[in-house]
């Protein structure tokens, strides 16, 4: 636990990297809405080479962008009740659903 809290202290932001090499920098707190990312950052997963970088070999840049957008949307609205739904393009829906299932958000 000590090492994980040290990592927490290291940066406020984490980098999510898609299979095709796109990088998205998001707030650590926002990204930890995903239980999978939270565990990745806390433990020593293969996907997280240095405490604050997560590689997703199965998620491409387009989908991961939407995921990052969702993290921001969720973080922005965390203390509100009347939240408008985020727009999701129907063509991305299935891929995004699989990503959401994988990330557990």
């Amino acid at each position: 636990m000590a090492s994980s809290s040290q990592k927490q202290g290291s940066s406020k932001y984490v980098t999510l990297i898609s299979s095709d090499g796109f990088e998205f920098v998001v707030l650590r707190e926002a990204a930890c809405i995903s239980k999978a990312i939270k565990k990745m950052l806390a433990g020593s997963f293969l996907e997280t080479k240095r405490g604050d970088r997560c590689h997703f070999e199965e998620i491409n840049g387009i989908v991961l962008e939407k995921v990052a957008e969702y993290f921001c949307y969720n973080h922005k609205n965390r203390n509100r009740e009347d939240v408008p739904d985020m727009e999701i393009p129907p063509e991305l829906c299935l891929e995004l659903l699989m990503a959401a299932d994988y990330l557990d958000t």
Partner: protein
Amino acid sequence: MNPPNPPNSMPPPAGPPQRPARQIRGPQSALTDFLASQGINANQIRQDADARRAAARASLQNGGGDGDDDAPSPEAESEVAPARKETKAQAAKRKKEEEKAIAKIKASKQFQRRRKQYGSDDDMSDEDEAARAIFEESMAPLPGQMENCELCEKRFSVTAYSRAGPDGGLLCPKCSKELGKEEGSAKKKRKIAAGRARRQLQSNLLDGIYPGAKDLMTLCIETLAKNVHNADSLGDLSDELVDKIAAILSKKRLMTPETLYLFLRPGSDTVTVYDAAKLTSDDFIRIFQIVPTVKHLRLRNAIQFKNKVMDHLLGTTVELETLSLHGSNLIDDGRWDQFLTEKGSHLRALKVYNTDGHFGDEQLEMVATHCPNLHRLKVCHNQKVTTKGVHHIAKMPNLTHLSLELYQQMPFLEGDLSLTDVLDSTGAGLRTLSLATIHNLTNNVLKDIHDNCQNLSKLRLTDNSTFTDDGFANLFTGWLNPPLIYIDLHKCRHIDAAEPRENPNRVGLGSAGFEALMAHSGLTLKHLNVHSCRHISREAFENVFAEDKTYLEMQEIDISFCQSVNDFVVGSIFRSCPNLKTLKVFGNFGVKEVKVPKGKILIGVPNALGMQIEGTEEDEGRVI
């Protein structure tokens, strides 16, 4: 800079009375009153009129050129260029006059008053702008004059009710009516949308969904449901996801013969349709054709699952392990017998709901003889099964899950005896036991459960007015069964219309029974439903949810219609159950203004306000 909209390209009509108010000399005419109440006085009118005349004169001298903004005529247009050249000096003069007028307005008392009035308004923050606005306003045509409509450019006579258009000009009655209609519908729409959002929020609360941003999976599934008609297949989604999508589609009543195909995946062993109301018999037959490997078939509202479908099923090689049929009241007893005889040996779970006059005692007998592997039996909303049928259940020793909700009430004692039989033979293996709407069963059944069942995790005994408090206390005291996870004892209470408050024989789940229950199962309990158990005292609640007691597993509690529940009890429950998600308190008028910790849902607060969320360090408390 463009000159301000010329008030009127036409010279002011000579004849018409400009201000009827001036002619009135009587002390108290209605019009005088009205004008006075509107803050209009003769001096101001005269000033306005003078300014307007000056401006009109100026614009007249400019020639028709300025009028082309409003109603361009081909002749005027040809002369535009020279006319503009001529007016340069005129324009400068007019500008000067205008500035003078504005300065005058700025100095006037009325303007100061208006400034104060609009003090908070951002639009009026700039003094010059404000003065100009007033100036332009005063230059607008007066009632009684003719004006071209800003939108349709027709001429009409200006009245006190003429409305300003989007660019500041006036509108004819027809256009203003249309504008009003549009605005009205927009306003109405906004109102409807707000109402819908509020109702949706309350509906979500009732479903146990905490308001706020939805999780990504829900968003995706909802988008998918909206666009399901464009989907060809669901790809290789996992079974749980497919099941979730199926559930949401059914909730939105979108499960049609076309969308059914998305869920018929060859090679799969599970087919679940949560709302099959729109499917025809042929669609059900197609399920067996496309997915011959199906082992677990669950269909709700499967009304068209009738003899024809059963005949087809009997003709295939499908070997069902789970059959859950809801609402299939068109399968006659003969077909059930045939099914149980031919396919019964594979069955491990059989759930039959709402079959009206079919599936009775004889069929239960068939189940007992032909389904040796049956682990799970559920007969719900059934009008045919009687005590005789219940006796047959005693011949199914492998049962681990038993659920009965029969409309033919088991008579006193006879019912007890039949259940004693059942519990003697199956009780030891039972993991869930659910007996709903059992008016006439007595403490003997509680004793049988205490003696026979040692593996239960879920217990439901509902709608009974003969079990006593002592009976419940004895059940939960010294019971060898490990602590339960799910308890539903709702509507176990005394009913007497003549003496509603008295309960001399301590009928129903009371204080002793409740405390014994929580002492036995409290630590592992996740779901607790004691709604309408109105004999539980406030002291019992306070003891159970005392300061030093915590129930970490508890997720859902229903204590509706327990009269003694008040703000303090609700607060104590929130303190003792840190992981609680939903608490229902319908009809508890002692609950008035308890503060709900963030993230928890309190349903049924008896006031129009709804639940009040407690504030935290981060944000304020509020009401939703």
